[in-house]
């Protein structure tokens, strides 16, 4: 979202928090979020991190313990669910089993007292939008999972909600359908231009669909940014670990230069990494993505980092290695594309190298803040 002009957020959460009585700790502890008009934000996190609770608070299904929810500057925190005008797609879709497809979609319009002719027209439009026009008279039980998903989308969108909320929208679909629906949801969101928030535990989903990603852990937002920010420039070890695979190496800052930092890593020597700001002598963590590390046969006498292959796992497109640096150094995960490199078996002596921009500083856990 770095390239969009600064505008006031469409959906704004301010210090939103939820504590359940009788349970230790808060489910959500002070979430601040801004979603610009027409954008799609993914809230990404492990199960139990509070992301669904946050979504349900936006929808009005859960009453926040503290904080405010605003849409277009209007405070909706005390507005009851049925007057809040949020389109919600539930994880289980929550379609009305006793109504057919068209009447499911029409429900929200009926509640708003929409005149019959307009209602019929808008239901047809909504069903066309999700490409289900031909199934209007079907019963819900006769639909496949993907079709139910589309009905749920049409039902939420037909009332032209202020914000569309999707709770784990793809988790109930099988793998093939999932990637098709991923594109479908992106297309529908683009076509309608509705401000969208979706919740997921799947980093692929979050990175590939959303304009912005908020990574959540233990009731807090760890980092917000574009998918690229989150993957390439994680600010915290949790984000680095949760989004993609990462080698995280603890060390001490030995020198600070213009745009790189020298970090002394035990067993590995000094590594230059981008990121900061940090001060010399501080404890920090360096992240190295497994696929950014290259392996070559060990050339005796070279000054490069040397290691021993502990194991090699063939995984089709890639080979996953575990390599011990030196004799007693850290063990690194290394991922190389199949066929593009000579393969090594356990026990092989190798040399490890990486591009200068591969190592990133991530703040040490509970460290700099």
């Amino acid at each position, binding site marked *: 979202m770095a390239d969009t002009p600064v505008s006031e957020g469409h959906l704004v959460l301010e210090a939103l928090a939820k504590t359940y009585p009788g349970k230790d700790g808060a489910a959500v502890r002070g979430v601040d979020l801004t979603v610009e008009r027409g954008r799609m934000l993914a809230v990404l996190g492990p199960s139990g991190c509070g992301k669904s609770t946050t979504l349900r608070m936006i929808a009005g299904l859960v009453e926040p313990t503290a904080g405010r929810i605003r849409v277009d500057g209007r405070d909706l925190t005390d*507005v009851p669910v049925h*007057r809040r005008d949020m389109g919600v797609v539930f994880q289980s879709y929550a379609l009305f089993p006793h109504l057919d497809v068209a009447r499911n979609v029409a429900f929200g319009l009926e509640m708003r007292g929409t005149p019959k002719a307009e209602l019929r027209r808008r239901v047809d439009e909504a069903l066309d939008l999700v490409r289900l026009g031909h199934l209007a008279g079907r019963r819900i039980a006769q639909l496949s999972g993907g079709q139910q998903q589309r009905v749920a989308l049409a039902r939420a969108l037909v009332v032209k909600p202020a914000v569309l909320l999707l709770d784990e929208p793809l988790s109930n679909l099988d793998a093939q359908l999932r990637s098709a629906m991923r594109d479908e949801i992106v297309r529908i969101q683009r076509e*309608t231009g509705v401000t969208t928030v979706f919740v997921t535990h799947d980093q692929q989903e979050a990175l590939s669909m959303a304009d912005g990603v908020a990574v959540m852990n233990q009731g807090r937002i760890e980092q917000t940014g574009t998918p690229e920010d989150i993957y390439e420039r994680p600010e915290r070890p949790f984000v680095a670990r949760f989004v993609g695979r990462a080698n995280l190496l603890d060390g001490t800052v030995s020198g600070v230069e213009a745009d790189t930092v020298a970090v002394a890593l035990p067993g590995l020597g000094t590594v230059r990494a981008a990121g900061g700001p940090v001060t010399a002598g501080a404890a920090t963590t360096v992240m190295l993505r497994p696929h950014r590390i290259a392996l070559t046969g060990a050339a005796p006498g070279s000054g490069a980092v040397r290691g021993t292959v502990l194991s090699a796992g063939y995984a089709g497109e890639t080979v996953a290695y575990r390599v011990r640096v030196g004799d007693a150094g850290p063990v690194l995960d290394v991922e190389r594309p199949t066929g593009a490199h000579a393969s090594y078996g356990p026990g092989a002596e190798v040399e490890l190298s990486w591009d200068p921009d591969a190592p990133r500083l991530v703040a040490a856990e509970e460290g700099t803040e």
Partner: protein
Amino acid sequence: MTAAPGTAPEADPKATPEAATAPVRDSPERPARRRGPARQALVLLVPGLLALLLTYALPLVWVVRMSLNESGEGGLIRQTVSLATFGEVLGSSHYGNVIRQTVELGVLVTFFTLVVSYPVALFLARTTSRWRGLLMALAIAPLLISSVARTFGWMAILGRQGVVNKTLDGLGLIDAPLHLANNLTGVVIASTEIYMPFAILAMISGFGRLDPALEHAAASLGAPRRTVFRRIVLPLTLPGVLTAGLLVFVLSLSGYVTPRLIGGGRVFVLATEIYDEAITSLDWPVAAVLSMLLLALFGVVIAVYLWAQRALEARFTGAQEARS
């Protein structure tokens, strides 16, 4: 797609939140759920709780109170608080026999019902036959007919001129009719059949963990059929059998219709005695005391059931693992 639902809000005033609140009809200031679920629950629960209080709780309290009264001359009730009536009942040899016969009937009926129900339940739980639905329906069909009518059917089968005696006589196997009715034997036979559908249903729902794959797995590991039954099927089905046993025992302890009709006034159990004391002798304190004894018997049975359940659980899970 400018006409599509949810078109970018700038293009459609309908989608702004101001417009959204207007068309929705009712408009309470605060959402209903904030009134507190406890108060809502109270409003919803009061009619039901009132019904239970009047038609169940209060009458039971009355029985407890009545059991502490004493019966005077000519059906009069002496209002007092004493255990005299308990003492009178427990000290009498007649009621001792009644209690003994009640327990005896319960044990016999439970045993026979379990024995005849287990094969049927096991078959219904495991079969993949296309007749399964029909056979299941047949097994519980007797529940459609009142126990009075089924008892009537048994009278026609077990009586002096009944089906059994007629058949045996016709075959020349007996000289005099067998005494199958108006005694404990008849009551046990008829009760066994009457509680069979309950036992079958309880067993099948308790057999939930019985997975044919387990039997196949055991067989593939080299266990002969007999061993598969003893080591796999029996342990997995025993909890269901235990539940069925509890159900049948409790039902037969308090059964009234069958002992009265088949017993022909010659089988005395707690249920028939409670009715006779209350309606014929009008001795309500004694009827109340007998009811308390029946409830105490229930308590003992349930305690035994809970103990057996725990013992089974320990025997077939924890202990088994520890031994092997």
